[in-house]
């Protein structure tokens, strides 16, 4: 019994840390509508800076002063980022902000390695809280007790801030309608900067408080950001109380889950999230987001390629197909990889642009395809083509299952649930060592002799990518494609016209997942191996970046986006040790300079013509 009490208290301490970080994210989202991917990076910076300061200044005042100073310094950095970067992109589509903050995260990770080195750093113990307190015969670290008190204390202070001060009332008002707040004479710029700095302060404080519990290293940002997303989504985006409740639930499930289901401890959190979202689609204390107001749709109606366009595309394809006669094997392998990602990106774009569904877990289907192909080769001894079919089928099957759950939600919540499922699949691949080889992956997945040379494999990849993109485009212009766009444009009208929103979106996810699975299966053969990374967040984000670079308003701009992004990242990895820093900077730069994506550049110019022109005369007489 007493053991369980101690375990419960450990859970509470964990909940407090989680709450600090998560409520920061929630507050920032509430007002600025930015899903701050860099939140984990600021958390990590808080920990690193606190570590550096605490090493220099000892004693109680030195230690606690270091933590607080670190949080303040990072908050100031946050304010700087907000004024210099985010202010430029508040009007860009939500995803671009996510992309920019993701780029920022990449940069911070490399910077942390440059400044603090790649090793784990262990900070000093907190003065006055070094020992343990005996509770019911169990030793509970006194630092944990401090954290247990701190969580509710911060919650209380935030409540006072939001209900008893003018700043707080303005923040709550802006959470609901920031434009109206501005129209009432409030300078939102400073409100936004203030809120962003406050959220970052909480994240950095959460990070700083970790230095005497846990090692500080340059991967802690991704771990915490995924956990934080889960907490915020369970609690309801924008709700501080929800974040508190969700942090408690997640931390306690972790504390006890590890005792009961040690094998699936990593997955438990995501299962809770999936369950909560199915029962309460907007989180425990969240609410339905009001639809974005006054969206004027593009004045360009999608149409199939003209014959001139087809000739141009055919010419490009022929030129690409002739590459094996002109370039060496290394470049052909690079080319094959790019082609595989062209198909992956095109499948995600089908989901995002035609379906209006933004997935953060598209790598799940890609990875399932890769593992499906690898298992077919290793366990069933199948040759290339049947193995590709197996991989594609596994990707499709994954989409059938995951899609069934996800289409119950929409918007940011849909994105987060896809992320959760991708993480579940990732954890399974990571932990089910007997079948998947776990972290060591599966090796020796080579194609048959006929396709083994780089140039035949290149042609295979070209044929598959081209076929996939063409098929996807045909679906866009098919009756089903229109039905899917109908749901995207107006779910209300679509349902009132007899269209089933859920099955439509489910089918779209299955189509996208199948093509992603095919790309993944081919990828396994290209690399000759499969690792859990192929299912990871970074693969999903790669896909998102490709689509956004290509232009989300286009049908297949992601083809261009995939070529540019993949070529760039392969080039950077070969040229510099700090590829993340450069890539991050490039992403941030692109988002700031081209908020419409590469494919959007041309559209930007052609859309400048006024479309409502001075009034064609009304024709009321033609009625009846």
């Amino acid at each position, binding site marked *: 019994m007493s053991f369980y009490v101690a375990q419960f208290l450990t859970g509470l301490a964990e909940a407090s840390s989680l709450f600090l970080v998560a409520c920061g994210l929630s507050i920032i989202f509430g007002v600025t509508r930015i899903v701050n991917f860099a939140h984990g990076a600021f958390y990590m910076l808080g920990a690193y800076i606190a570590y550096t300061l605490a090493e220099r200044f000892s004693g109680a005042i030195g230690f606690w002063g270091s933590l607080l100073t670190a949080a303040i310094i990072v908050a100031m950095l946050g304010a700087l980022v907000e004024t210099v970067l985010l202010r430029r992109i508040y009007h860009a589509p939500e995803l671009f902000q996510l992309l920019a903050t993701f780029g920022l995260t990449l940069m911070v990770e490399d910077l942390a390695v440059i400044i603090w080195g790649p090793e784990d750093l262990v900070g000093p113990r907190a003065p006055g809280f070094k020992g343990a307190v005996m509770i019911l015969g169990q030793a509970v670290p006194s630092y944990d007790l401090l954290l247990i008190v701190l969580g509710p204390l911060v919650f209380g202070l935030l409540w006072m801030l939001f209900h008893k001060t003018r700043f707080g009332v303005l923040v709550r008002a802006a959470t609901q309608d920031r434009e109206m707040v501005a129209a009432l004479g409030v300078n939102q710029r400073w409100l936004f900067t203030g809120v962003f700095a406050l959220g970052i302060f909480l994240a950095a404080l959460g990070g700083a408080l970790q230095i005497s519990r846990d090692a500080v290293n340059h991967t802690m940002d991704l771990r915490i950001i995924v956990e934080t997303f889960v907490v915020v989504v369970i609690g309801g985006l924008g709700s501080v109380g929800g974040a508190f409740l969700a942090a408690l639930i997640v931390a306690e499930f972790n504390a006890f889950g590890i005792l009961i289901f040690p094998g699936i401890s990593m997955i438990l959190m995501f299962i809770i999230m999936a369950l909560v979202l199915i029962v309460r689609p907007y989180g425990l204390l969240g609410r339905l987001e009001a639809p974005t107001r006054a*969206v*004027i*749709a*593009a*004045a*360009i*109606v*999608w149409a*199939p390629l003209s014959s001139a366009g087809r000739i141009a595309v055919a010419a490009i394809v022929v030129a690409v197909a002739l590459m094996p006669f002109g370039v060496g094997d290394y470049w052909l392998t690079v080319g094959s990889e790019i082609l595989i990602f062209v198909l992956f990106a095109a499948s995600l774009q089908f989901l995002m642009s035609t379906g209006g569904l933004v997935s953060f877990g598209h790598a799940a289907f890609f990875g399932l395809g890769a593992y499906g192909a690898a298992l077919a080769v290793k366990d069933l001894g199948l040759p290339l083509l049947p193995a590709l079919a197996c991989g594609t089928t596994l990707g499709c099957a994954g989409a059938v299952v995951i899609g069934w759950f996800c289409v119950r939600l929409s918007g940011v919540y849909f994105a987060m649930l896809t992320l959760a499922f991708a993480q579940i699949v990732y954890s399974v691949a990571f932990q089910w060592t007997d079948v998947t080889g776990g972290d060591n992956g599966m090796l020796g997945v080579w194609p048959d002799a006929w396709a083994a040379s780089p140039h035949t494999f290149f042609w295979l990849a070209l044929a598959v990518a081209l076929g996939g993109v063409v098929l996807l485009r*045909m*679906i866009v*212009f*098919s*009756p*089903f*494609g*229109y*039905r899917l*766009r*109908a749901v*995207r*444009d*107006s779910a*209300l*009208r*679509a*349902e*009132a*016209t*007899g*269209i*089933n929103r859920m099955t439509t979106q489910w089918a779209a996810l299955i*189509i996208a997942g199948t093509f992603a699975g095919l790309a993944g299966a081919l990828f396994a053969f290209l690399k000759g191996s499969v690792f859990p990374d192929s299912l990871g967040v970074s693969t999903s984000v790669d896909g998102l970046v490709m689509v956004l670079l290509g232009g989300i308003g286009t049908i297949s701009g992601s083809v261009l986006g995939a070529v540019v992004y993949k070529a760039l990242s392969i080039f950077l990895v070969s040229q510099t040790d700090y590829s993340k820093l450069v890539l991050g900077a490039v992403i941030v730069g692109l988002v700031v300079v081209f908020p419409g994506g590469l494919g959007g550049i041309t559209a930007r110019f052609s859309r400048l013509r006024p*479309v*409502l022109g001075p009034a064609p005369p*009304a*024709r*009321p*007489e*033609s*009625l*009846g």
Partner: protein
Amino acid sequence: MSASPNLLAVEGLRKSYGGVHAVQGVSFSLEAGEILALIGPNGAGKSTCFNMLNGQIKPDGGTIHLKGEAIAGLPPRLICRRGVGRTFQITATFASMSVRENVQTALSTFAGQDRRLFGLATRQHRHEADGLLDHVGLLAQADRPCAELAYGDLKRLELAVALSGKPALLLMDEPTAGMAPRERIALMRFTASMARAQGIGVLFTEHDMDIVFEHADRVMVLNRGEVIAVGTPETVRRDPRVRTTYLGEGLVYARPVEGGAP
């Protein structure tokens, strides 16, 4: 009384939100070819009623029968497939498509062809779509992007989309809001002639009392979730309870009630 059931029969319809009774025990019926107006102050339960009829909101209690079949609680897409078309107060159209494509998409849904993954959608039901667009006076604008349409034209497009399912009952939420008077009258006349010729029952809400009293066969007044009056336009506008709760002294609509302030 004829043996055949009413086109629409609503009995004891109820809905509350967290203790607030938005609609409490509403009953009415509607015949084929009849035009019934639903009026009342904001928050009287008009929208809730409307949304229950088309399935967007599940009723807490009561029954809705369309041509004798129970439809209460079905999702919108099934109610639509049983013959209920609707237009929205804030027009809902497929904004990324051309005007014709909007109607084609609806037609291919009703024809059960929207599962096809191949074949150009723009080649299907073209003729039929143009017929409907001609009907509502939008044929000349068939190729324009829907996003470019003027407000009144959007309303007519919505009507064409709603009609493509050949509905037996048409629900129109503030059909003439934002139109010029001539357009309004034309639209309501078109609606009336269509209702009579094809035997479509029409239920509409409207804030413009002139439209209500001019074009409805019967008027039903809702207040605090209850029907407080139902009858011909003339009886309803004379009803003292309707005047105190809704119509007021008649200062703000064209033809003042007899005895009201000028």
